[in-house]
């Protein structure tokens, strides 16, 4: 049941029509015991029997799905991952060349406004740093053999991969925790509304001029948020299936989990590359939101005019920069 839900999830959320349909292990009872006859009868499903040892996965005599999984891992995933990651890098490079860095209209005001408090930032960086390690150690499992192994030699590569595996397994927990916190603290600002439609219609201001109206998060950021939360959930759930082998599911379920996990992960990586780009290189004034938490008021007005208005109305006036501090307080 769990598997079916996951499969549905995979197809719905990620639109992956390409995931090979996994036949469920409903073993028919063939009257012949010839391998060929049995396999024909089962149409490529697992050949399952009775075994006395407690390890029931050993009761699967032949599971031809392994072949499909191999095809997926070595071909589909490599292509999808390669295209997603490299393609996104290429896309961003082109975008940067064409669009350049988006400046703050009217330059910095010198006045800042608190965009993310310390807790939000800490949580963001916890998730972000986990994600980077998870992504790199994950990509290593698919591509390292072709990229790093020839460079490092087998012993060193195993050392790296081994630690990578440990890191991948352990960091899964803070990563998941961070995702849950993100959901809790940011969900209220990420509920899609009418503004988003207008924002999207206006192309988000990335193309052309004239920034559309936006609240605390614009539709693009909301997209990132939901992709992170839902994609992260998919990666986390499937990841736990893999980290606790055979606790929740059988080998078929684990293969499927791995497929969802890896495809979601490479797509997430691609999206996160875009996120990182826009938050750092692509846009002037954005990175402070997650470093000091204070963004320039002009930047804020440019990209999140409705939020600024709301904040000001709440009386939480923009704070002057530290350099201007002496003016009144003391």
């Amino acid at each position, binding site marked *: 049941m769990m598997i079916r839900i996951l499969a549905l999830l995979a197809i719905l959320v990620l639109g992956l029509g390409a995931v090979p349909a996994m036949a469920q292990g409903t073993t028919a009872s063939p009257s012949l015991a010839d391998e060929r006859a049995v396999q024909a009868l089962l149409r490529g499903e697992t050949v399952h029997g009775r075994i006395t040892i*407690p390890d029931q996965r050993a009761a699967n005599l032949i599971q031809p799905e392994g072949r499909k999984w191999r095809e997926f891992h070595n071909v589909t995933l490599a292509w999808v991952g390669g295209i997603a990651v490299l393609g996104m890098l290429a896309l961003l490079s082109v975008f940067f060349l064409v669009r350049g860095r988006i400046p703050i209209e009217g330059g910095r005001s010198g006045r800042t406004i608190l965009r993310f408090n310390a807790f939000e930032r800490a949580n963001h960086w916890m998730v972000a740093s986990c994600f980077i390690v998870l992504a790199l150690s994950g990509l290593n499992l698919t591509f390292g053999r072709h990229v790093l192994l020839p460079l490092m030699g087998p012993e060193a590569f195993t050392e790296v991969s081994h630690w990578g595996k440990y890191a991948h397994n352990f960091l899964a927990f803070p990563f998941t925790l961070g995702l849950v916190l993100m959901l809790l603290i940011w969900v209220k600002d990420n509920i899609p509304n009418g503004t988003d439609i207008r924002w999207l219609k206006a192309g988000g201001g990335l193309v052309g001029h004239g920034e559309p109206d936006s609240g605390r998060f614009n539709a693009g950021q909301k997209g990132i948020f939901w992709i992170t939360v839902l994609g992260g959930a998919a990666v986390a759930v499937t990841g736990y299936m893999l980290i606790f082998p055979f606790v929740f599911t059988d080998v078929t379920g684990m293969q499927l989990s791995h497929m969802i996990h890896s495809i979601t992960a490479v797509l997430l990586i691609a999206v996160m590359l875009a996120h990182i780009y826009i938050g750092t290189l692509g846009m002037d004034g954005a990175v402070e939101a997650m470093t000091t938490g204070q963004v320039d008021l002009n930047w804020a007005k440019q990209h999140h005019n409705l939020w600024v208005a709301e904040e000001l109305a709440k009386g939480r006036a923009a704070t002057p920069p530290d350099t201007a501090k002496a003016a009144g307080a003391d």
Partner: protein
Amino acid sequence: MLIKRSEARAGRQRLAAAYAGLSSGGLDRRAFLKQAGVTGVGLSALGAIPLTTMRPAAAGPVNHAEPVTRVKNICTHCSVGCTVTAEVQNGVWVGQEPSWDSPINRGTHCAKGASVREIVHGQRRTKYPMKLVGGQWQRMSWDAALTEIADKLMAVRQASGPDSVFWLGSAKFSNEGSYLYRKMAAFWGTNSVDHQARICHSTTVAGVANTWGYGAMTNSYNDIRNAKTMIIMGGNPAEAHPVSLQHVLSGKEQNRANLIVIDPRFTRTAAHATEYVRIRPGTDIPIIWGLLWHIFQNNWEDKDFIRQRVYGMDEVRAEVAKWTPAEVERVAGVPEAQMRKVAELFATQKPSTLIWCMGATQKTVGTANVRAYSILLLATGNVGSAGAGANIFRGHCNVQGATDFGLDVTSLPAYYGLDANAWRHWSRVWGVSYESMVARFDSQTMMETPGIPTTRYFDAVTMPVNAQTGLAQRDNLKAMVVFGHGGNTVTRMPEAVKGLEKLDLLVVADPHPTSFAVMSERKDNTYLLPICSQFETEGTRTSSNRSIQWGFKVVNPIFESKDDYEAMYRLCGAIDAAAAKRNMTFRMQAEIFAPLEVIDNRPTPESILREINRGAISTGYTGQSPERMKLHMQHQDKFDLVTLRARDDAPESIRGDFYGLPWPCWGKPEWRHPGTHILYNTNLHVKQGGGTFRARFGVERNGVSLLADGSYSQGSELTDGYPEFTTAVMARLGWDAELTAAEKASIQAQGGSASWATDLSMGIIRVTMDHGVMAYGNAKARANAWNLPDPIPVHREPIYTPRTDLIAQYPTLPDRRAFRLPHLGQSVQNRAKDLAPNFPIILTSGRLVEYEGGGEETRSNPWLAELQQDMFVEINPRDASARNIRDGSWVLVNGPEMPQGKATRMKALVTERVGPGVAFMPFHFAGWFMQEDQRSKYPQGADPIVLGESVNAITTYGYDPVTFMQEAKVTLCQIRAA
């Protein structure tokens, strides 16, 4: 591509070390040894016993730089007799190799045989003598243990007489050990000496011996390759004797033979059958008579064979006539068409063999079943030739030998029985006076009365002494000495527990504590003596096919264990000391061991075998000298796979011999009789292993001759039937003149007259063989065995039967007495009839390939225990779904004789192996008793890895009238989800 690296990098990730201690019971050898060392030191410090007496099983993988010695021994599990080839380095058994040269297993093993090396790792063995003190196990020295045991034995002897000690021996003994144990019991002065055959094939022995002379498999595993039709009925050799299936399946393939499996359960054997017949448990006789009905109806019987070699077949016809196809279907549930098909195949596509096991024997009608099987073979002329015969697969590795040497309450060694002639014969062999033997017993009557069988020992403990209604001997059993036997193997365990608790003394001499050590609530007077396995000593063992094989010692006994020979020698010495202390004149050691060679307190098996060779004349255990047996093991590769005969390229010393000199191997070793591959085979000369049916039952009955009619073994000078030979018959034929002076002197010395079996000079055998004549006579086989309760087998419903409607027509036997005890029949059946509705499922039992017998040894072997970790009950999907039982879930099972409110707990295995209304349980489990986990009662570190409920907590009353075989195959139970 990777290449081999140097050893320098080795060991960074050690496979075994990395795993150690991480899983339940999965200690590898190295880690275990480390721990064993630690515990060893701790214990020795506590007990102030020097560690030097503990022989650790130091180990390590094979060091390929150093030489490896190869030692051949025989597998200690089933009766097939597979050769085990051990690789030994520095006194440590480091590896097992295929024994390609053995004509029996040809390199192969089953799960048990392939894991026997673990036995001498001995992780969970009894490591030193122990006793229970207030419910706690206490370590002690051998001398202290034997002194205390002997003192208590003598106390029992003084107060209650010799018959109050029960000597339970073992099918795990070598032949020499079995013989010595029987001799020891005789010198103690009791016939209450028994072993596993009582509960596995005692009814086979009684049944076939009463039919044609000897109680053994007539042909061999290898000879099955010649069969055109095989019926396996009441046996599952694929699990119980896996290596035999090599011969069965090869025969099936090469001859395109019919393999018919008749069994209530669709076994792993049935999976390979060409025809599977499912019957209701307990309906063997209706099936056999039903087959014969078709055979007689269609004139498929072998009329010449019956005329020449069978007595009483007409009376069988009368009984068979009652078993019309309709009646067979009503009683056993098998349709006419299938019965007719099987009958036709068996009777017309010959040679045909009938293979059976405990499905036939462990019944209240066990002997009758065996008799019916034998009669089917006789009617179709399938006895005494290649590819035919009664291929009875016996159970333990030496159950045949232990039976032959009289670990049996009814006989002295070699089936001489218990009468005065038998005692006189063995007294002569032992070099003691008959009168001195009589003096060792309570009375001459007790000396000639069969003892207490192992199926009823606990009744003899608890039942009031009364010659008419209770136990017919001076006093109850007070002490029990158990060598190599499990306590969970006998039915009615709740009763057995009560019996054990009442004993004054319980001694368990075994490599393992066994279930005897834990199943009762005994707190004191219980001793464990560590005995080594047969791999740590030497001697011969007899396989099911009567081939005798010498096992060479692989390693010295591990820890403080001793072999059976030494343990018995020391025990006898201790008894003598205890007797002296009590100012009794009774002595054992000197007389028992006087004819034997004793080195370092250990009688040598060679000298024991030579004594056997002198005395076991009746069974032809006389030609198998230690030298010949060792030569056979040395030149195994020279024997033919199918005929078992040493080929022309064999050394002269064995050329022409049958492998293992299967008994009877007549006369003296130097006569070079080749042994008898196929019993009663008239196509061979008696000197070449030919034979006739044995004339054991006189020459005529009611005016009808019992001797063969125109049938005789090849080259016989007497071309008709003849009686067994005595000095008188010799004289009548004038053959006595051919006896040598020495032979005559020998006969004269034993009183002037002798039969062929008591003639210690073996002159009678020599002379008769020179005339091509069989000394034991040439008779007809008996279809009518008038001395048995049912001379012609008749169907009798099991005591606990779900078909209560059939009881009136086919009742069990009326209540009677046998073996010093009452034997209830109809009174129990009548009571059971009312209980049947509450227990709607038939419970039957059997073997698993991974375990053997009571299972303590095999459940202690991690390589085996891992494969079967839970006691289970097989239940049909229909019965399971009616009870909401899922495959693999826990269930509670109880039986009609269990204490009120009690139940056993085990896993359900929902399978169509069993039909609706039938459940199956393996019988190897112990250590849980009616939901009580008894693990804490084992001595620390000696508990088997896997424990479970015993089927015998559920099994019920029911005994074969001839041998007191227990009813283990048909009882009733109820199952519910836990």
